[in-house]
């Protein structure tokens, strides 16, 4: 691929102007190939350097392959290395030419210099050409028995490389057994470590195929092997220690004595200069003591100092990785770190991502004894030049306020922020004051006095404006000018771009009206009129709803819009404790840095143990059909966005208002009856379903028979599917792994429908008309594979389908997994009827 644009504008001086230079090089190399004149090596070296530098820039120099090989007969080791580098880069794409190199590489494998033997063996194994593996077995076997540890070390990794090119060759040559022998016997620690990494990978991959490999993999975690490694741990270099420690962390000791022995043995690893070793050790400690609560606590105490030192000692990048882990631990056991809060103070010139982590830790460790200092420190950041940082700091202050009992001082501080007259500070603080009032209504008096002084003109951000309006409505009695401020806001209705604010405005003016009718009547009328004329569906609906509600009965309206509220005691946590535990299990891995368990981000495990994920990965080659699906969905996208945004808002704001105003729609639903609400759903679906069918008509393949029939209507059973269900591939994959197969069926297709099967790419679109969505597809004639997804209309219960179609034999294999297994039969019928319509329109 081309390097980024800048580099093209300023090419490096060594960049050749065109192809001419490469062919020129080819000529020169050819002349040198047979020459034995003194000084040839120096000339060669210059030429080789040029070739490699072209290669580095990204110019294809594979055309000089044969000349390079011809020139490779040399005793100069630098020349050899450059040649190995070159060969390793191009052999894979030129397997025929690679055969040329085998000869000289094999010869070098027998060189008397161990360094050359090692390098040659490494290059030989790195060629990566499948039909040359036969030439690899011999040198590798010799390499493993070589007298020099450097060669054995290279050979141990070479076996793994061979395994990745051709697993059967590697296993047939009995290399795993040889490696195991070396691993347990070799006196060189690096050889042992390399054997371990190779064996771990080979046996993990083999385990699915052979029971013996699975047993061997288990045996790595057996007591004698683990003890063997532990006893030699000091011989290993720092990186190998990490690998061994990773292995040990998987070991399950039989009793607590054993745990203490291991921890005593490893304790000094915590003082290692390499942070990776320290972190691996910490992982071992944490995992081993998980079931021993007291000791686990002590472990936290013990690892605290090394972690804090690591944070302050290394480069910013290292600090970040350590901080991520520290963050995890602090979140799990904040009380242990509460006396070390000063370590989480932010430095002025730290990058924002570091400061953010630190702020979260400061919030977590705040308790009665240190809150004052922490909040004082946070207030310093609010005056910071850095706006995102100031915002985060205010949020942190708010969070601390919400988790503390004594919020007296904090509320004062927050109110001081409002007096700073900086827009972003005011905005952020308003949102917080709102949350605070929901938890501590007793503070309303003090807060309202200050909030009342804020001119609504100075608040522009939707979230802040919404918060301010909420307070105006909620505390209409206490705020003298509330009706008039609201009135002026309503006058500018058309300039208010955020639907969220307009929604809040409607509710606030309702509340205000119910408390101070004479003053608000005019404003309410204006608001309802503007709301009903609003182009935004939700605003329109709500205005209409309020209007009818008032028409129906004002006391009912009072009960719905302005019921007595209870203070919120606990705000919902964003991350479930289950997920936090998962991340903790994956300590010292990327999960911690991303703050997600690995299944949420490793969508495609590289050579991973899950067969399914590989399948899905391969299947996604069918990107084109996927694009089509996206395009088809695009029609609905607008509708869907609208719907989604409402429901989301209601979730987040629902408890925001303590279930007052925003519960109104559901109240509505329950009065009119469930049947009607589901009818509503259908009628809502209709237009989009018609839409999709018309777009399908272009495909000429499908045709639902009656274009007017809405998608879900023709379903034979009571099972209704959500036409707009969505799921992201990761979530699908995770679900697929979790759920058992609830139904597995083989069905035959009517042979008359084979014609339709010649173009299975249209199947996803067809199924979508039946509210069954394709998530991945692929394959080549005659075998095609699809993964489908569907969701029940009223609930979140989902169905996952794997569908393998053989178009020549007209057979279809179905595998259905479902949240609600009892309905999977019904779903299967539905699926099959949809499929049969595809085959025979």
């Amino acid at each position, binding site marked *: *691929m081309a*390097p*980024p644009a800048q*580099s093209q504008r300023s090419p*490096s001086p060594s960049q050749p102007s065109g192809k001419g230079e490469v062919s020129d090089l080819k000529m020169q190399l050819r002349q040198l190939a047979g020459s034995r004149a003194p000084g040839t090596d120096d000339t060669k070296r210059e030429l080789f*350097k040029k070739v*490699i530098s072209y290669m580095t*820039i*990204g110019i294809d120099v594979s055309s000089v392959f044969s000349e390079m090989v011809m020139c490779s007969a040399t005793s*100069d*080791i*630098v020349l050899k*290395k*450059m040649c190995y*580098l070159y060969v390793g880069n191009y052999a894979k794409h030129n397997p025929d030419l690679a055969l040329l190199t085998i000869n000289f590489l094999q010869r070098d494998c027998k060189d008397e210099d161990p*360094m050359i033997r090692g390098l040659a063996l*490494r290059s030989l194994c790195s060629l990566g050409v499948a039909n040359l593996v036969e030439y690899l077995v011999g040198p590798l076997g010799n390499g493993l028995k070589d007298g*020099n540890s*450097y060669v054995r070390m290279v050979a141990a*990794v070479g076996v793994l*490389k061979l395994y*990745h090119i051709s697993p059967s060759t590697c296993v047939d040559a009995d290399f795993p057994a040889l490696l195991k022998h070396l691993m347990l016997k070799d006196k060189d620690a*690096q050889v042992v470590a390399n054997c371990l*990494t190779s064996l771990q990978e080979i046996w993990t991959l083999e385990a699915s195929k052979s029971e013996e490999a699975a047993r061997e993999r288990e045996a790595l975690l057996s007591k004698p092997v683990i003890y063997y490694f532990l006893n030699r741990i000091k011989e290993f*270099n*720092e990186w190998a220690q*990490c690998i061994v420690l990773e292995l040990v962390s998987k070991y399950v000791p039989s009793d607590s004595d054993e745990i203490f022995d291991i921890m005593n043995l490893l304790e000094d690893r915590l003082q*290692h*200069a*390499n*942070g*990776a070793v320290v972190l691996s050790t910490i992982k071992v400690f944490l995992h081993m003591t998980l079931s021993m609560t007291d000791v686990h606590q002590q472990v936290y105490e013990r690892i605290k*100092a*090394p972690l*804090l*030192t690591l944070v302050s000692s*290394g*480069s910013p*990048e*290292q600090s*970040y*990785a350590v901080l*991520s*882990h520290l963050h995890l631990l602090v979140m799990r056991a904040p009380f242990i770190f509460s006396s070390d809060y000063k370590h989480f*103070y932010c*430095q*002025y010139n730290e*990058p924002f*991502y570091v400061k953010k982590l630190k702020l979260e830790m400061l919030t977590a460790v705040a308790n009665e004894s240190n809150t004052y200092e922490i909040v004082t420190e946070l207030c310093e950041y609010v*005056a910071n*030049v850095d706006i995102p940082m100031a915002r985060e700091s205010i949020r942190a202050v708010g969070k601390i306020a919400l988790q503390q009992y004594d919020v007296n001082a904090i509320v004062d501080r927050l109110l001081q922020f409002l007096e700073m007259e*900086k827009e972003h500070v005011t905005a952020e603080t308003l949102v917080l004051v709102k949350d605070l009032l929901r938890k501590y209504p007793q503070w309303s008096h003090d807060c309202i006095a200050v909030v009342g002084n804020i001119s609504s003109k100075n608040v522009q951000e939707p979230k802040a404006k919404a918060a301010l309006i909420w307070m105006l409505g909620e505390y209409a009695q206490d705020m003298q000018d509330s009706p008039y401020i609201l009135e002026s806001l309503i006058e500018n209705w058309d300039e208010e771009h955020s639907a969220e604010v307009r929604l809040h405005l409607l509710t606030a003016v309702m509340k205000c009206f119910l408390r101070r009718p004479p003053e608000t009547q005019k404003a309410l009328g204006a608001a309802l009129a503007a709301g009903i004329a609003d182009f935004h569906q939700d605003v329109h609906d709500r205005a209409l709803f309020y209007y009818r509600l008032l028409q129906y009965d004002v006391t009912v309206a009072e009960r719905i819009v302005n019921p007595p509220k209870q203070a919120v005691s606990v705000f919902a946590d964003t991350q479930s404790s289950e997920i936090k535990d998962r991340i903790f299990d994956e300590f010292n*891995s*990327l999960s*911690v*840095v991303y703050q997600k368990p*690995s299944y949420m*981000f*490793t969508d495609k495990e590289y050579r*991973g143990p899950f067969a399914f994920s590989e399948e899905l990965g391969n299947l996604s080659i069918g990107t084109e059909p996927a694009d089509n699906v996206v395009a088809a969905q695009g029609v609905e996208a607008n509708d869907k966005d609208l719907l989604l945004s409402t429901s989301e808002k209601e979730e987040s704001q629902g408890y925001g208002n303590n279930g007052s105003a925003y519960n109104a729609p559901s109240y509505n639903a329950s009065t009119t009856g469930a049947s009607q609400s589901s009818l509503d759903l259908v009628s809502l679906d209709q237009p989009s379903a018609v839409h999709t069918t018309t777009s399908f008509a272009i495909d000429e393949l499908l045709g639902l028979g009656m274009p007017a029939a809405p998608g879900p209507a023709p379903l034979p059973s009571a099972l209704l599917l959500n036409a707009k269900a969505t799921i992201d591939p990761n979530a699908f994959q995770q679900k697929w792994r979790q759920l058992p197969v609830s139904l597995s069926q083989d069905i035959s297709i009517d042979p008359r429908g084979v014609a339709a099967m010649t173009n299975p790419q249209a199947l996803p679109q067809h199924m979508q008309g039946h509210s069954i969505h394709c998530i991945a597809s692929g394959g080549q004639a005659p075998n095609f594979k699809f993964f489908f997804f569907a969701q029940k209309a009223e609930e979140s219960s989902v169905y996952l389908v794997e569908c393998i179609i053989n178009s020549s034999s007209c057979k279809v294999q179905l595998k259905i997994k479902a949240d609600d297994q009892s309905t999977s039969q019904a779903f299967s019928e539905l699926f099959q009827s949809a499929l049969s319509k595809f085959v025979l329109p």
Partner: protein
Amino acid sequence: MLQCIFLLSDSGEVMLEKQLTGHQVDRSICAWFWDQILTQGDSLKLVPVIASPTHYLFQVVREGITFLACTQVEMPPLMAIEFLCRVADVLSDYLDGLNEDLIKDNFVIVYEILDEMIDNGFPLTTEPNILREMIAPPNLVSKVLSVVTGNSSNMSNTLPGATSSCVPWRKTDLKHTSNEVYVDLVEEMDATISRDGTLVKCEIYGEVQVNSHLSGLPDLTLLFANPSILNDVRFHPCVRLRPWEANQILSFVPPDGQFKLMSYRVKKLKNTPIYVKPQLTSDLGTCRISVLVGIRNDPGKAIDSVTVQFRLPPCVVSSDLSSNHGAVNVLADKTCSWTIGRFPKDKAPSMSGTLVLETGVERLHVFPTFQVAFRIMGVALSGLKIDKLELLNLPSRPYKGFRALTRAGEFQVRS
């Protein structure tokens, strides 16, 4: 397990590509990565560990060069980052610095080094002493040598002795004509001082750096007069941990050359050697600023290289600053630096002036943080003292040298 390492120049050009496994990582990942940097505006603002659509990327930036590593499998992030840092250290050690030209001129050496440092994605040898024996650095001496002897190989023909030595960081038969060892205490003081002059946080991060040129297999013992003040310590692999745990004695067989023997932290210090008192008062669109700097606790040695740096708030349109000692510079990005150097004997340095604020801004709401730098030769401010250094197993009496140095780390004063 890493799959590929790229070295990128400060314009995003791929200077070097080292594939580590059979899985070839396409170069386009670099273009994607560079786009990310451009959207962030600054490579330092990008999180060191990021996920691209196809790979997980680790990046470390040194002297404008980005070391980018890719992987598709779960692995300890710190291992990858530590390794990249080590690569950067080794390269800058080898090439005597780190910049685009040096890497491009010596790319063959860089390839050779990477080849020995990592195999199939697992780090191998990262000890600079050992690498040096496998691949000779491209220094002047070896260049002269190659011209004179006609042997232009920069490779040693033998494998490093250390691979067979029982002390992996040292080869067996070292010989030096003059036996000497230098021990340096280098400390950095991190402090945060609040508006009212109270010390919010003050601690010292220190390192014991040793430069050893000793023959044979010497055994060294280093004793501190007051080891109890150390809060947390971290050692080079050569240090034997038992004697430290038992008696706080550092016993070790040193690698040859310069290395970091140990690092430590001393918490909760009560005093800083200098004070910085900024004062800002603003009214009617102008702001008066004055900064006083002076010695608070005389460390007994001269304090030099004193500078005070801060960034003018964005709402400042122009500034007029002057000082009674040293030079004041305001750069285009509103960074203001006041270079004081040594403290004058007769007066306390002060800087004062006025800042003009944007129209409409009456008073200053954001206040700058002042970053202070200084250096004190001959003193370790933590109070750590070396008691004695004993050397065993040496053919002749060696020369021993001790030094100490304290400089400001993150020394910040708020206003």
